[in-house]
């Protein structure tokens, strides 16, 4: 069973629909027991960091998530919550990736919204079959820079982490569920881990 973490408002239906298209259903839940027992967990990406972390802490999910051993995929805000700290709402996050989330500096329109390709890509199972020139859909105002966990780099005024990985924890700043065939390929890669 695949569990999708429920928090805040926002369109998380798209992720579920994208999984269904690939032949997998998901439960949307904030029940710590269901999350712990799921084969795979997705932390989808809409909302605001401060209120999202608050919700996770209230449910005791912050401790549950960091102790998971099965594959976890954070998308957009999901990636940012997996970092150490976010400037958005001055928020202490989960600390899976020891890196800071910052707001895009002046010099380009914010949010970074639309299709963008990669500066570089590592050899990572999540990104299997993806090429540097492939475009993925982004919509975000905050980013985390390139660090030791970065597996793909995107450029928008600054170079930032488009994807990261630490052991069983995977994360993408782009929205695979909204990124046409290329995005579907990435979700498929995650499902077949």
């Amino acid at each position, binding site marked *: 069973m695949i569990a999708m973490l429920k928090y805040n*408002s*926002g*369109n998380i*239906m*798209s992720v579920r*629909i*994208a999984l269904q*298209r690939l032949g997998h259903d998901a439960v949307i839940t904030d029940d710590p027991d269901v999350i712990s027992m799921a084969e795979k967990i997705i932390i989808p990406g*809409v*909302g*605001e960091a401060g209120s999202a972390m608050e919700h996770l802490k209230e449910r005791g999910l912050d401790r549950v998530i960091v102790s998971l051993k099965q594959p976890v995929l954070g998308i957009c805000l999901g990636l940012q919550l997996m970092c150490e700290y976010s400037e958005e709402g001055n928020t202490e996050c989960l600390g899976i990736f020891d890196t800071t989330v910052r707001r895009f500096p*002046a010099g380009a*329109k*914010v*949010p*970074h*919204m*639309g*299709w*963008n*390709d990669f500066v570089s890509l590592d050899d990572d199972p999540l990104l299997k079959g993806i090429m540097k020139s492939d*475009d993925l*859909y982004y*919509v*975000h*105002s905050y980013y985390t820079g390139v660090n030791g966990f970065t597996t793909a780099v995107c*450029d*928008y005024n600054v170079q930032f982490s488009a994807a990261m990985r630490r052991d069983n924890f995977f994360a993408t700043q782009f*929205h695979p*569920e*909204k*990124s*046409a*065939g290329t*995005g*579907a390929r990435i979700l498929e890669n995650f499902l077949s881990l």
Partner: protein
Amino acid sequence: MLKKRIIPCLDIRDGRTVKGVSFINLRDAGDPVELARAYADQAADELVFLDITATHEKRKTLASLVEKIANAINIPFTVGGGISTREDVSVLISSGADKVSVNTAAVLEPELISRLANSFGSQCIVVAIDAQFIDGEWIVCVNGGRKVTKIRALNWAGEAEGRGAGEILLTSFNRDGTKEGFSTDITSAISDRVNIPVIASGGAGTMEHFRRVFEETSCSAALAASVFHFGEILIPDLKRYLQKNNINVRL
């Protein structure tokens, strides 16, 4: 590099596309879901659905349509038309819309933008501005262009950004439906004024019009309806043309 977006717009009434659409080999050209799928297959970057249903059943019909569209395509889409409350937005977002656009209701009550941005996040709130050139000024008009306000479009765009809009959809009423090209002057002025993405709309007739709006303004996307619906411009051809002219697009 971030790509310039090409966005087809579909007018919807009672769950069906409004204007006649003669578009590739569709079984049912009035079915928005089938059209959406066709555009996604042609590498449209996003879609906009504008609902002009006036009946009380509107909310229910639209929510069920949005759900079908969300199931059919895997690119982002925006839904607009008569949205005036948080409840309206909540229904659409939970049915699978990525963004909503507000227009008249936001002009009547600017605070609406702040409320929606706080509840749902700026990234899903598009403020649609219909602008008319009157006596040497670009002025905001509402109610589908029937009512002219006293607000300058440039100022309204600035206020919308300040209140938390994530994007501006700017339609030139002087050019809408004329196929004479986008109004690059106001598009340029607004794109330079705000630090959020601006979608240019109104007047697309040829591929050159798209090239010019991207070359002459800092807009992030261009939207059109009839030239796409009637197959006068095919999106893959348009994107190849733009690419040849050194405008970055997703092929």
